[in-house]
Every structure is written in C-alpha cells, then in structure tokens.
C-alpha cells in the first residue's frame, strides 16, 4: 500500500500538471497540460522515469519537448550529453513510451522550425522565458547549468514553474 501511495503521489506530482504558462504577469495562469488521471501503468512508468532519469538530473516533465525530441534522446542514451546513460532494453522502452505519450503537442513551446531539439533550454519558449537571466546567475556554483531547474524554480519537481516560486541563489526572488 505504501509503495502504491508513493508511486501515485510521485506520478501525481510529476505529470499531474506541468505549469508551463506560469507568468503571473500574463493572462495565462497555471494550466495543467494533462488533467486526465494517469492509468496505473502510466503511474508506474512515470515513477520509473523519475527514478532512472532523476538519478542524475531533474526528471524534466515530458511536456517540455515534442515526440521527435524524446525519440532521439532515448535512442542516443549511449552518448547522452557526453555520458553513458544506457539501461536495460525493457526499462528503456517503458520510459520511451511514457515520454512519447506525454510529449508536448504544443507548437508554441517546441516549434523548432523542423530542427530536433535535444536540450529543453534551446526551445524557443524556454529561451524567451529566460531572456533576462544573466550568465553569472547560471554559472555560479549553486546553479551550475541552465539545465538545473530546481536551483531557482523551487517547485520544478512538481511541474510548477510559477514566477512567485522563483528564488535565484545569491540574487533572491524574481520580481
């Protein structure tokens, strides 16, 4: 029972809502990308994704990249941004299916004019949202990389990227 609760909690936190439209200063308020509850199988897949990919970096919400990006990522795990991120065939397939199912269908976020984005940080929506972030903020030891969502987005793991939840180390809240 405990395991089941953990899995469903993780799944709910994890894909229950990706708040991509999180600008408090815009009309669009936090809107979960997926409101349908996950099937048991998808919950298990989400938990596997979080365990496997989350071992090295935040398990980025699937909705940040389109299908073709996840497909390319999952087929290149032997050289995943310069490291070997391979796992057994069954787990690879489960995670690939999961990511493909919950990949972004929204062109506003991921339109790369035909190019296949592997880095979320290169997608147009991401670039636009981070245009005021300086190199110093990113390269400081507490952040290290633009890929380190949780360094500033305090609730990123839950899929929430609201402005009021931002806290940049050594700079403070984003206001």
């Amino acid at each position, binding site marked *: 029972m405990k395991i089941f609760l953990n899995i469903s909690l993780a799944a709910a936190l994890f894909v229950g809502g990706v708040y991509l439209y999180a600008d408090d200063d815009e009309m669009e308020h936090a809107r979960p990308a997926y409101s349908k509850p996950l099937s048991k199988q998808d919950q298990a897949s989400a938990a596997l994704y979080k365990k496997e990919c989350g*071992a*090295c*970096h*935040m398990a980025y919400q699937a909705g940040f990249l389109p299908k073709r990006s996840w497909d390319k990522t999952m087929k290149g795990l032997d*050289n995943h*941004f*310069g*490291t*070997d*991120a*391979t*796992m*057994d065939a069954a787990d690879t397939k489960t995670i690939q299916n999961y990511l493909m199912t919950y990949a972004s269908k929204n062109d506003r976020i991921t339109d790369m004019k035909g190019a296949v984005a592997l880095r979320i940080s290169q997608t147009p929506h991401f670039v636009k949202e981070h245009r005021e972030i300086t190199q110093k903020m990113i390269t400081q030891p507490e952040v*290290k*990389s633009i*890929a*380190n969502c949780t*360094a500033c987005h305090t609730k990123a793991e839950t899929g929430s990227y609201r402005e009021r939840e931002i806290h940049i180390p050594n700079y403070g809240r984003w206001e």
Partner: protein
Amino acid sequence: MKYLTILLIGSMSLMGASTEVVQYMNELSSVAKTENKSFAGFDAARGKEIFTSTHTGKQGKPISCTSCHTTNLSNYGKNSLTGKVIEPLSPKANPQRLTSVKEVTKWLKRNFVDVYAREGTAQEKGDVLTYIIKN
C-alpha cells in the same frame, strides 16, 4: 529457526552486499579466472586504484570515479556535470547499495565507460565492488 533467520540476515548485511550481488560477484570471479590464468580472487587495493585513479574519460577529459563519488565512500557525492547529489556508495552508510544486480550492472557499465572510455573487465568490476564493500 527465528534466531537462525535473524542471524542469516545479520551476517548478510555484515558482508555489505545482498545474496544476489554476492552471487553476481561469484559469476564475475568465474569469468575473471577464464580471462586471467593468474587470477587469485578480487582485491580491494586494486579496486581502490581503479576507483581513485584519473583517466581520460568518454568526453576526452580527465575524470575519476571520485570526481562524483568523492574519496570518502560514506559521504554524499555530487554529479560533476549536473550537480545532483549522489547518495553514499558505501553499503555501511547506505544499506540500499549493492542490493540489486540490475542496479549494480547498470552503473558499472555506465561509469566504466564514462571514466575509462571502455567497459570494465570481470576482474576490474569485482575488484571495485570489493573495494566498495570494504569501505
């Protein structure tokens, strides 16, 4: 019978690896014997050298196992690329370690490739596991 079970579980945890991981290490030992006629068992000192020495890794840059895991296996480590915290590697500090062959084989493969730009031999894998168990 109850005491026997407790004793068994107790001695297993003292060994620092689960039964399935011990079994996996026995298999590695058999392979090591066929690959190296003079093989006389795994050695923690050789494992330490494998773990602490610096090599040209997959990215063509100097890297060591300690780049992420630090030189104290009871300490938390940190992924040198992403900054993500890594749980202690020592089974004494972290009882979850060396309990699953699936986990062990996955990480040995990945990490040998990242640090040595090749997979480890059976002897090397056994040596490094022996070093981790003893530290």
